[in-house]
């Protein structure tokens, strides 16, 4: 399995076979609380790095999810419509949001690694 990378907006990204899978981190799901709905992008949509392209709704509030890298949305996790709780239960596996075909795979490599992200989260406490 490839290395998981992280953004300051609390998304994780995993590049496998040239396609990047994106979700939100355990820290993010814990801060959001119980997720009740997700609004996912249309496959085929071309997104810029940092562009809001999904919305996650918890009991408490709505939050944007951003594209960590530029590229084209090639697949979304349709299972979340019936089971948004997967984002809380398994944020980095079953709770993935969408897959991006990167415009430039090097953008993924430039994101934070797990240790850097953990250090970043510590600064927020």
């Amino acid at each position, binding site marked *: 399995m490839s290395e998981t990378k992280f953004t300051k907006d609390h998304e994780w990204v995993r590049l496998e076979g040239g396609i990047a899978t994106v979700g939100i981190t355990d820290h993010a799901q814990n801060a959001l*609380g*119980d997720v*009740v*709905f997700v*609004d996912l992008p249309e496959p085929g949509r071309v997104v810029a790095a940092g562009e809001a392209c999904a*919305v996650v*709704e*918890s*009991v*408490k*509030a*709505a939050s944007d999810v951003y594209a960590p890298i530029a590229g084209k949305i090639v697949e979304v996790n349709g299972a979340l*419509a019936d089971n*948004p709780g997967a984002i809380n239960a398994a944020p980095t596996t079953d709770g993935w949001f969408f897959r991006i075909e990167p415009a430039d795979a090097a953008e993924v490599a430039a994101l934070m690694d797990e240790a850097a992200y953990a250090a970043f989260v510590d600064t927020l406490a």
Partner: protein
Amino acid sequence: MADSNEPLLETPLAALHRDLGGRMVPFAGYAMPVQYPAGIMAEHLHCRAAAALFDVSHMGQAELVGEGAAAALERATPADVQGLKPGRQRYGLLTTDDGGILDDFMVANLGDRLFLVVNASRKHLDLPRIESLLPAGVTLRPLPDRALIALQGPGAVAAIATLAPGIADLSFMGVGSFEIAGAKVLVSRSGYTGEDGVEVSVPAERAVAFAKALLALPGVRPAGLGARDSLRLEAGLCLYGNDIDETTSAVEAALTWTIGKRRRTEWNFPGAERVREELANGAKRLRVGIRPEGRQPARGHTPIHEAGGAAPIGEITSGGFGPSLNGPMAMGYVAGGLAADGTALDLMVRGKAIPARVAPMPFVPHRYAR
């Protein structure tokens, strides 16, 4: 409202909240627990199934004493205070001279005095307003040294009655004094969740011991502001600052029932002219319940259109997901002609129209001990 740069105030239970793992957030100038480790959903459902303990000590408590206190308070509210019997409590509105809502509040008749509970975010306005209307001989005494703790849910009264059996004899909106965990407390059978339960006014120095005594009872768990908000919205109850404010009238807010019958013949409360005109001719807008189709919540400030309509006819004031309803719910204001149950609406969420309908409230039936 406290300036955002001012340090947050704490209730007497602040340390207990932290011990319980509460996630503290700023609310009305206080550091308050929005949730505990169980989470909003679990805390909400536990309240509907058993009993939840809420710290509402940030709310303002006061007593009004002296000959003619009830008549004096009627100078600030359209509620029938003079008709309130000893041992009974009532929900009412404090109104502005223009007929807006200054605050919503509870008033109880304790026999020798009136006991008031007002919102945390409004107490700095409410208490001076009431005081400015008092005649000689009637005195308003703020009670900043008292905590207020709510125990809500179908198991709440049975649980607290193991400590003071007389509480079980109170009916909905009944009030009495009891001694619990070494503290003299004032108990009202009321709350803001739609469930049976009590709100208890406790001397601040006894509040921690009292809360711990309740939390030790079978079935009682702590719940935070997040659950309190989803519970009150399912119950169709207004949050001041969201659903009612100084621009909304009692008629627009569908709170005409809080205006005493006698008061509607006397018309001697602040803003009576506006209320009278709106009762006669209809209000321009009305607060209604709204059920969005599907699962997506529509939050406060979402524009409301008539189904297929191009222009907004109102706005959501509170919206979210109801854990007991298992679906999205909202309340908001719509133009007077579009307030009938079943009216088709579009809610404009992030530029997309979500179909919705005007729906009766409460969304989850009240279970008060009438």
